[in-house]
């Protein structure tokens, strides 16, 4: 999967890929104070393309400890579980479920929005591939608006950027690919080489990707993310990130 981190103060987008084994689960957000965990399970394309096997998020799991709600979203179905009931919703119809300030809203074959008490919003976008496509598979995208209120203790591959890091990019120069200049990125005093690139973003126009220009961090976000990407592997779809 690829990640795009929007840094409003620096006015830049930073992107990186995480390539991990299919079946492994990555922690994306872990807010121990509010009791919120968001994880993504990796799936692979049907086969390698140009020698590379692409990976994606096949399942997104969300756990809201306070409300005792668990949401599991896959390209096949959406399951919402509370202490007493388990509900299955389908991507083939638009439906919303309101339960004590907890709103799960499915937009037919497009996205699921989870709104908690109106100050927290998470969006999962469905990417459907052609069923008989030789390589591509259905996968999911997760969008977390900057306004979503996580606590200061929040971590995870995305959650750690709740507090915007000090980032500057300078010394833009030609790289091996003339289309993609390289530059030096300084993050909280550490320096790394980044490459100019574009990534697809589906939030603005669902179903129609918008190209986002970003500075790409190589080696699974090494130097930009806190620690090593393998630190973010968790055992269960509803697990919290542990340092």
């Amino acid at each position, binding site marked *: 999967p690829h990640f795009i981190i929007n840094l409003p103060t620096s006015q830049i987008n930073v992107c990186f890929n995480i390539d991990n084994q299919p079946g492994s689960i990555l922690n994306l957000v872990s807010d121990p104070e509010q009791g919120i965990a968001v994880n993504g399970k990796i799936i692979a394309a049907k086969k390698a393309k140009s020698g590379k096997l692409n990976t994606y998020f096949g399942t997104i799991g969300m756990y809201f400890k306070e409300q005792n709600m668990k949401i599991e979203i896959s390209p096949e179905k959406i399951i919402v579980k*509370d202490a*007493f*009931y*388990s*509900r*299955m*919703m*389908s991507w*083939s*119809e*638009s*439906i*919303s*479920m*309101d*339960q004590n300030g907890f709103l799960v809203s499915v937009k037919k074959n497009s996205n699921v929005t989870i709104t908690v008490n109106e100050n927290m919003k998470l969006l999962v976008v469905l990417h459907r591939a052609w069923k008989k496509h030789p390589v591509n598979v259905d996968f999911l995208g997760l969008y977390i608006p900057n306004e979503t209120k996580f606590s200061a203790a929040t971590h995870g591959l995305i959650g750690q950027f709740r507090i915007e890091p000090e980032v500057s990019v300078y010394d833009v120069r030609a790289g091996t690919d003339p289309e993609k200049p390289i530059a030096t990125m300084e993050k909280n005093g550490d320096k790394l080489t980044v490459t100019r690139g574009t990534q697809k973003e589906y939030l603005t126009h669902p179903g129609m990707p918008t190209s986002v220009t970003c500075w790409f961090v190589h080696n699974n976000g090494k130097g930009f993310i806190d620690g090593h990407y393998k630190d973010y592997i968790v055992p269960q779809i509803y697990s919290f990130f542990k340092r």
Partner: protein
Amino acid sequence: SVLSDDDESEVFTEDSITLHSYKVESTITSHFVNTMIRSKVVNNAKHPQNIVFDIQVPKGAFINNFTMNVNGITFSGSIKEKSVARNLYSKARARGKAAGLMRTNSLDLENFKAELNVPPGSKVQFEIHYQEALRRKLGVYEHALYIQPGRLAKHLEVDIYITEPQGFGFVNVPKTITEDFAGLVKITKGDKKAHISFKPTLDEQRTCPTCSTTAVNGNLLVKYDVKREQSSHLQVFNGYFLHFFAPDNLPPLPKNILFVIDVSGSMWGLKMKQTVEAMKSILEDLRPDDQFSIVDFNHNIRCWKDELVYASSVEKEDASKYVQRIQPNGGTNINEALLRAIFILKEASNKGLLEPNSVSLIVLVSDGDPTVGELKLSKIQKNVRTNIRDDFSLHSLGIGFDVDYDFLERLAQENHGMAQRIYGNQDTAAQLKEFYNKVSTPLLKNIVVNYPMEAVSDVTQNSFHNYFKGDEIVVAGKLKPESVPNLMSIINANSANADLTYQLIEEAEELNELFEESKHVFPDFARQYWAQLTINQLLAERNLATTSAAKRNITQTILQLSIDHHFVTPFTSLLIESENGNERMLADSPRDPKGGCCQTLVVNARVPPNLPQPTPETGAQQSKTAPPDVMIPKLVDDD
């Protein structure tokens, strides 16, 4: 639909009447059935003979045409207001130009019989059309055809064409007239279209190789369901829309259920034994978060427990033992029993003992009229209506022949419930259990279906108390001519501890392509489906109307709809007349005053001596109808 002599091969019969062909064709489009039965008969005898066209129509279906052709003279049908039709018919009768037509009730069918005295060498063709909206029950649509040609047919052909825009979940034919014919019933199934056909040769129809009698006599039953990828499906066609809502994958709502069981003397024997069997199984199926109790009544009212209890295994076992100990005797005090049940539910509710999103039901099982306490049925209805709360529902099950099913049905209708007749036989326990299964799993409550006001009109009932698993909510309406090409609907409902909102947008006329490429589609399905739903709802509303003015208004609306959509309803008759209007017949909708027993409604024969032999069931009623001149006006106009 005219007579043809394309086949001269003979079928030798004792009475020299040849059934030239017998064709049955059902076209099912989006669960709406249009059935045609056509029979061509020749009197080969050298003397006049009575020829009978005798078919069975499922209850709930509306007959919408009947035509005859006698030696080239066509009799065609038209729907008229009852008294208008009767007057025209009377005039014909006065001139001796009226023929016999008979409609009678049996348990779940109506018999339709036309009888003609036919001169030697004459050919007659009968053709009847009826329409029926299939109701989904326990996840299945059932279409039954009653194939009874009565004699060997040179050409016998049964075709059922099904077109379902949602695609089929499954299609099967569990009954094939008799098991011997199973191999002759062919099923062709595609994604959205299916064809079931049955075309036995003359020899295949025979009861034995040398017999001249037919073995073709029984039901052809088709069961199917459509794919349920979406909870609801909107179909827009020819200016009408149909909205089918049947969500699944929802956790069941807890229920509070009161079983009110008639244990009067008349229940003694098989009925009680079967009721106990059913109750044992029903109790077993209660879920731990269900609350229940049992009220059993004869002239006295008894309760297993005075309050609702949770369905733990201990309580269920105790209740089961209680039911098994019941010895039926005494009278029937329905009024007190129902009031007690309502009291128990209200008490539990007032004390806050009912789960917030639970569904409260009373299931009444009775086999007879009240004989003790309040006897006036209207007073019992009023007592129940004034005491019951709007969020409770009352379901009625009438066992056997002596039960006043109309009364039980009214009780259920007035109180958001369903009614069902249970036939008192070896199968009673299974029938009771099947009914319980229908209401045992409530999935949603307070369902409201909305459409943009500017886009639709004449929408049928759009709010419902409960939705049970396996059932289907159907709403229909008209599209306003100036409406946008897309129709949107929003359904709000309460599920277990959550509120749900379903939103659906469907493109108008999306079905055109599917239907254009299908030869066997009933093009008026949406229009007629809407009309049947509306008429049935108006009939139920009419039962509940409190003023005669309101009743009159509803009657007038039903009458107009029946005429516009060509349905025989309780307020219309089908007048069948020859091209010059000289000869007439009349078909009315039979009433169901006492349930199961057969009742002759219109009996008139141009040649009365050869009326069919009365069966043990019909004999008593038929004898009451003689002489026809006296009885007919009273029976026909008894509204």
